[in-house]
């Protein structure tokens, strides 16, 4: 470790950069509310220490004081970038505890919305990765396309980023408004156009900056707890949607993209392939959508959660998300443990990948993991 901090060394006018502490975040465009302290020797990183906690709001504790319908709204905030997926994990935990049979139409709507949430989360990732690599066009194109998805979210849920617990225990808060099917079909065509556009960029900037960078071996990935696209880029085709299906995923036909290289470029290819798979899933769910309309879910104000415990796992855009919920028969859960993929990706995995890397490769490694400080800190 260093003897003097970077600031002290700069104040002294030192030109020696061995043992220099370099802070990447938390005040950095795109890093999110999260930082990592790098100790560098010249251009080489010799130590990395993640510095989380800037977004710690104590959700697990807050949920012990709130009813499921209030917690559904709270679950939006678990990850700003994919609120609907987190809605779904929470709602499923309550449904399983209560033994609620969710109507098939509601299940289809849940899957459609969760998959759109995955698509727009991957688009954000594409945008911030491009931005991190200095490829501003990619950032602007991606965020432009993301807005089309947010338009649909606003139309269906009323909220663009936070759907206010749209996927809630028992089903969804309201049925698709009239004209939603047409909008979804149009949006899917736009998304397909977008994926073709992204292909064109792969061969230049992203490939040049990401290929062979931040290589994660499969045994390291398992030891460090990587899940989702990060794990699939190392050669293991694991996906909760296929391995332990929930909702209607077991009846849908989709592929789990997998790559062997384990580098930042492989992770980016996986996410782009996943957008295509999500489009396939939405088409199938839309075709299965039963015709009858759904009665709106009325929140049970005095409802109690039956005594019991569940551990529910879902596949969200970043990896494995899970909720352990324990109820003692009260209206509020006694304990609600939230397991997000980013606690693992942003501390053990990131620290492992950064040691030995060059300073110039930090953005490629950092954003290839598709970080979200919100679900890490909770």
């Amino acid at each position: 470790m260093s003897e003097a901090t970077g600031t002290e060394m700069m104040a002294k006018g030192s030109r020696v950069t061995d043992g220099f502490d370099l802070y990447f975040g938390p005040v950095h465009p795109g890093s999110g509310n999260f930082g990592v302290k790098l100790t560098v020797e010249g251009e080489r990183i010799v130590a990395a220490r993640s510095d989380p906690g800037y977004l710690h709001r104590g959700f697990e504790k807050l949920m012990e004081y709130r009813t499921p319908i209030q917690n559904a709204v709270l679950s939006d905030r678990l990850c700003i970038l994919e609120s609907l997926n987190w809605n779904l994990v929470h709602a499923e935990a309550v449904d399983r505890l209560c033994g609620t049979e969710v109507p098939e139409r509601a299940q289809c709507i849940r899957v459609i919305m969760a998959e759109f949430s995955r698509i727009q989360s991957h688009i954000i990732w594409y945008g911030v990765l491009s931005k991190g690599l200095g490829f501003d066009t990619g950032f602007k194109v991606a965020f432009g396309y993301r807005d089309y998805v947010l338009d649909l979210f606003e139309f269906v849920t009323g909220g663009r980023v936070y759907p206010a617990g749209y996927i809630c225990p028992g089903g969804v808060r309201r049925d698709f408004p009239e004209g939603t099917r047409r909008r979804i079909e149009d949006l899917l065509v736009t998304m397909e156009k977008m994926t073709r556009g992204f292909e064109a960029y792969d061969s230049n900037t992203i490939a040049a900056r990401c290929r062979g960078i931040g290589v994660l071996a499969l045994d390291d990935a398992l030891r460090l707890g990587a899940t989702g696209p990060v794990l699939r880029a190392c050669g293991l085709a694991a996906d909760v949607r296929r391995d332990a299906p929930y909702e209607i995923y077991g009846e849908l036909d989709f592929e789990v993209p997998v790559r062997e290289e384990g580098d930042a470029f492989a992770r980016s290819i996986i996410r782009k392939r996943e957008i295509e798979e999500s489009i396939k899933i939405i088409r199938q769910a839309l075709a299965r959508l039963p015709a009858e309309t759904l009665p709106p879910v009325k929140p049970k104000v005095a409802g109690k959660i039956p005594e019991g415990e569940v551990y529910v796992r879902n596949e969200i855009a970043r990896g494995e998300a899970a909720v352990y919920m324990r109820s003692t028969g009260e209206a509020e859960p006694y304990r609600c443990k939230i397991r997000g993929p980013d606690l693992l990706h942003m501390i053990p995995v990131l620290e492992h990948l950064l040691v030995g890397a060059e300073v110039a490769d930090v953005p490629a490694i950092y954003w290839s993991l598709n970080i979200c400080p919100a679900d890490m800190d909770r």
Partner: protein
Amino acid sequence: MADVESEQRRAELLEATGLQFGLEPRVASDGSVWVSVGEQKLGDLLAFLKHEGLGHCSAISVTDWPEDGAFELTYHLWSYEDRIVVTVKSRIDRGEATVDSAISLWGPSAGIHERELHELFGVTFKGNPDLAPLFLESWDGPPPFRKDFDWRAYVRDAFYEEGDRRERSYWD
């Protein structure tokens, strides 16, 4: 989890756990396996399950039961090959709150959960070299996720003014 192979594998695992440890694992309606174990046998059971292919430590959690004077640890494990989820539960003394680390079995993926639980519940994991604070800055109060930590009183005292007209309702 309907496929035949994982059901077979689960049945084998249930039998082996019962025979070796004299425990009675429970299968929930969603197919997940739940097993409670005493503190003395916890390490052996976890090592056994790791050896049986539950290679992914999905999460470790603590539930606080102050009336029973106990912390309940839950280890949520997943097998990528057999597609089985197993939860191991074990109660430890709330006053002592020390347990062996699972870092030798699942590496840093278990270590990071333990680091979080050490900060938020005050449970010490023996053998984990890094239990440094994770989220809280300059915090010297009790572990805040314990049931007996009154966070409402803390927030009111630390952040609200009794004399402030708009914040008065928090003091009623």
